[in-house]
C-alpha cells in the first residue's frame, strides 16, 4: 500500500489546521454560510436532510486494517456507530457535528486518510477494480496509476474550479469491475504489440439526467504520457465546458456537442503543446510508486482444498458463498473474498463499527492487513489462502456478514435516497430491503444467477440505475413516491444504457414487477444464459407484456 511521504503529511495536516480555523470563524460569525459552504464542501462536508454528512475518500478503494479501525472509531466516537460505503469507494458518516469535523479530519490524517476533493467541482477520488493487484485476469495493477493521478490532481490549481465535478476510473483487467465507461474519463490498461503497458482512453461517460457511455478517444496511450494527456483532456473541458447551466456542465455534454473525434483532435492539439513540459512522472518516480504496490509474498498453494470442498457440500450457504463471494487470485491456492454488505432486509453499504473492526481483524489475520471497498458497496479481503475460507466465513457469518449473494439479485446498489439525502425525490433503501425479503431464498437466487439491480432515489443517479440489468428510479409524482423500472443496462465492459420499460409504480408495484421480469427471464433463458444476455436476445416486449399486460 502507498505510504505518505513528508509532503503528503504536510499537505493533509495543513489542510486540517486550515479547516479548523475556518470552522471556528464560521461559528463565531466571521464567515457567512455563503462564504463557508464552498470551504466545507472542499473538505467533504455536506448538509443533508437530518444533519451534516462527511464523505471520506478511500483512494482507489484500498485501505489497511488500521485505517478501517480508525473508520470504526470515528463511527463510534463522532457518529451513531455506523458508516455507509458508497459507489465511489468512499465512506459517508451521516451524523457528524460541524464542531467535531476538524477533530475527525485530524484522526483521519493521522492514519493517512482525508476527505479532500470528495465534493466540489474538482477531480474526485479515482476509483478502480476492487480486486486490483490481486486478480488472475489482470494486465497490470491499476493502483499505482490511480495514486499518481491522485497526487497530480490533489490541489491542482488549474482544475480546482472546473465547470462541474470530474470522476476518473481505471481498470487493469479486461473484465471491467470499475464501470470505467460511465466515468468522465475511463482508463483501460492495455499492452501494445511490443508488450508495453499503456491505456485506452475514454471520455464523456456519465449518469445523471443525461446518461452517456464514454467514447474512446485514444486506443493506446503510453503510460509515461498519462498525466500530460489527462491534463490536455481537462484543459479542453475546463475551457469549453458549460458554466451557464449546471445540468449541462459535465464533460459528457461537451463531448457530445463537439463529437468524440473533434474532442480527440483538440486534446491532441493541446497535448502537443504541453507534453514536453515537466508534467509526467519521471521513470524513477513511477518505479517508487509502483514499489508500494508490490504483490505480497504469497506462497503458491494447492487450489484443491478438500476441507473447503467438503464444507461446501455439507453446508449450502457456505457452498454458495464460495461460489459467489470468492474471486480467483493470481497466485494459485488464493482467492479474494467479497464480504457482502447487502444482508436481506438490511441497508446496502452500511456497516457498524463492530463489523468494521471484525473485518479489520480478519484482514490482519488472513489478508496481509489489507482491505478493499468495491463500487458495488461491498468490502473485500484480498490475498486470502483458500484453506482459510471456512474460518473466515464462520467469523463473518456470526457477525451477519456471511451472506452468499455477491453478484446475485440481492447484491443491489442503492443510494441513500430520501431517508438521508436532500436531493432525493423518493426513498431507495426500503425498496432494497423489501427486495431482500421477497427474494430471501438462496437456492432461488442461485438459480436466477448473476443479476444486478441498481436503485436511485432521484435523477442524479447515485444508485447507477442507468447501468442496472434492472434499474429503479425513484421520482416524486404529485407528492407520492413513484418508481420507474428500467431494463438492460450494464456497467461492465459491455456497457449499455438501461431503458424505461413503461409507466411507474408504487413501492409494492415495482417489486411485483421485478418478480414478473425475473419470471419472464427464467422462462425465456437458454442453458446457462444470464439475465442480461436473455434481455438483449429477446428484447423488451415480452417483459413489457408480462409487467403491463397486453394493451
Amino acid at each position, binding site marked *: 500500500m502507498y505510504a505518505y511521504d513528508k509532503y503528503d503529511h504536510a499537505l493533509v495536516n495543513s489542510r486540517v489546521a486550515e479547516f479548523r480555523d475556518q470552522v471556528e470563524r464560521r461559528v463565531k*460569525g466571521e464567515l457567512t454560510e455563503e462564504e463557508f459552504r464552498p470551504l466545507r464542501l472542499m473538505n467533504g462536508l455536506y448538509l443533508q436532510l437530518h444533519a451534516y454528512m462527511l464523505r471520506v475518500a478511500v483512494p482507489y478503494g484500498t485501505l489497511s486494517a488500521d485505517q478501517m479501525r480508525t473508520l470504526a472509531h470515528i463511527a463510534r466516537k463522532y457518529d451513531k456507530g455506523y458508516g455507509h460505503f458508497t459507489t465511489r469507494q468512499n465512506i459517508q458518516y451521516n451524523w457528524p457535528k460541524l464542531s467535531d469535523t476538524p477533530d475527525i479530519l485530524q484522526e483521519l490524517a493521522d492514519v493517512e486518510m482525508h476527505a479532500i476533493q470528495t465534493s466540489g467541482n474538482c477531480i474526485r477520488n479515482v476509483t478502480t477494480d476492487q480486486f486490483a493487484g490481486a486478480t488472475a485476469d489482470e494486465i497490470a495493477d491499476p493502483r499505482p496509476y490511480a495514486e499518481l493521478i491522485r497526487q497530480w490532481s490533489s490541489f491542482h490549481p488549474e482544475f480546482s474550479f472546473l465547470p462541474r465535478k470530474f470522476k476518473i476510473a481505471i481498470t487493469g483487467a479486461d473484465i471491467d469491475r470499475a464501470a470505467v465507461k460511465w466515468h468522465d474519463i475511463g482508463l483501460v490498461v492495455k499492452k501494445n504489440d511490443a508488450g508495453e503497458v499503456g491505456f485506452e482512453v475514454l471520455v464523456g461517460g456519465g449518469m445523471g439526467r443525461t446518461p452517456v457511455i464514454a467514447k474512446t478517444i485514444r486506443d493506446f496511450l503510453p503510460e509515461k504520457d498519462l498525466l500530460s494527456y489527462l491534463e490536455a483532456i481537462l484543459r479542453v473541458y475546463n475551457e469549453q465546458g458549460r458554466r451557464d447551466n449546471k445540468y449541462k456542465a459535465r464533460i459528457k455534454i461537451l463531448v457530445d456537442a463537439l463529437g468524440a473525434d473533434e474532442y480527440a483532435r483538440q486534446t491532441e492539439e493541446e497535448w502537443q503543446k504541453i507534453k514536453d513540459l515537466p508534467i509526467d512522472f519521471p521513470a524513477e518516480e513511477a518505479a517508487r510508486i509502483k514499489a508500494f504496490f508490490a504483490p505480497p509474498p504469497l506462497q503458491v498453494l494447492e487450489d484443491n482444498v478438500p476441507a473447503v470442498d467438503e464444507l461446501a457440500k455439507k453446508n449450502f450457504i457456505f457452498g454458495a458463498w464460495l461460489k459467489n463471494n470468492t474471486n480467483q487470485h493470481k497466485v494459485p491456492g488464493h482467492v479474494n473474498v467479497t464480504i457482502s454488505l447487502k444482508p436481506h432486509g438490511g441497508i446496502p453499504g452500511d456497516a457498524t463499527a463492530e463489523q468494521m473492526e471484525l473485518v479489520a481483524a480478519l484482514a490482519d489475520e488472513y489478508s496481509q492487513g489489507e482491505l478493499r471497498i468495491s463500487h458495488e458497496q461491498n468490502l473485500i479481503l484480498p490475498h486470502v489462502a483458500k484453506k482459510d475460507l471456512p474460518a473466515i466465513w464462520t467469523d463473518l457469518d456470526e457477525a451477519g456478514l456471511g451472506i452468499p449473494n455477491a453478484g446475485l439479485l440481492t447484491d443491489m446498489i442503492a443510494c441513500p435516497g430520501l*431517508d438521508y439525502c436532500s436531493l432525493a425525490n423518493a426513498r431507495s433503501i426500503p425498496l432494497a430491503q423489501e427486495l431482500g425479503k421477497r427474494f430471501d431464498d438462496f437456492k432461488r437466487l442461485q438459480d436466477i444467477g448473476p443479476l444486478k439491480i441498481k436503485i436511485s432515489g432521484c435523477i442524479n443517479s447515485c444508485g447507477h440505475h442507468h447501468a442496472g440489468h434492472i434499474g429503479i428510479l425513484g421520482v416524486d409524482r404529485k407528492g407520492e413516491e413513484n418508481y420507474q423500472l428500467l431494463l438492460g443496462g450494464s456497467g461492465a465492459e459491455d456497457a449499455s444504457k438501461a431503458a424505461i420499460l413503461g409507466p411507474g409504480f408504487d413501492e409494492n408495484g415495482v417489486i411485483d414487477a421485478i418478480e414478473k421480469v425475473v419470471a419472464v427471464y427464467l422462462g425465456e433463458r437458454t442453458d446457462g444464459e444470464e439475465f442480461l444476455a436473455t434481455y438483449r436476445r429477446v428484447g423488451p416486449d415480452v417483459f413489457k407484456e408480462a409487467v403491463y399486460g397486453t394493451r
Partner: protein
Amino acid sequence: MARKIKGPQMIVANRLLDGRVVFMKADGTWSAVAGDAAVAADEAGVEALEVLAQKSADENYVLSIEVIDATERDGKPFPAHMKFAMQAKGPSVRPDLGYQVSPAWEQTDL
C-alpha cells in the same frame, strides 16, 4: 412585495453546530418537534416568520432556512411534503435513530 402562498406555512432549518433539524416557534426560538412550529396562514404572517428566522441565521444559530407547506397531524402542525416529513421524523429505515427517538436534545446547550 408579498408573495402568494397556497396554504399554511411553517419554517424548518438546520442548526449550525450539529446540522440537526429544527422548526421555528412563534417566538423565534426553535424546536426539534414539528408540532411546536408556528404556522402562518397568510403572506404577512409568512414574512413575519421569515424575518424572525433570518435573525437566527444572522446570529449563526441556524442555516438552510426553508418555508414549507404545513398540514396537521394529531391536531398539531406537521410538514405536508414527504421530504420535510422525513426531516421531522428521522430516517424511515432507522427508527432507532433521529428525532423520533429523543427530541430532548433540543434543550442541549451548544
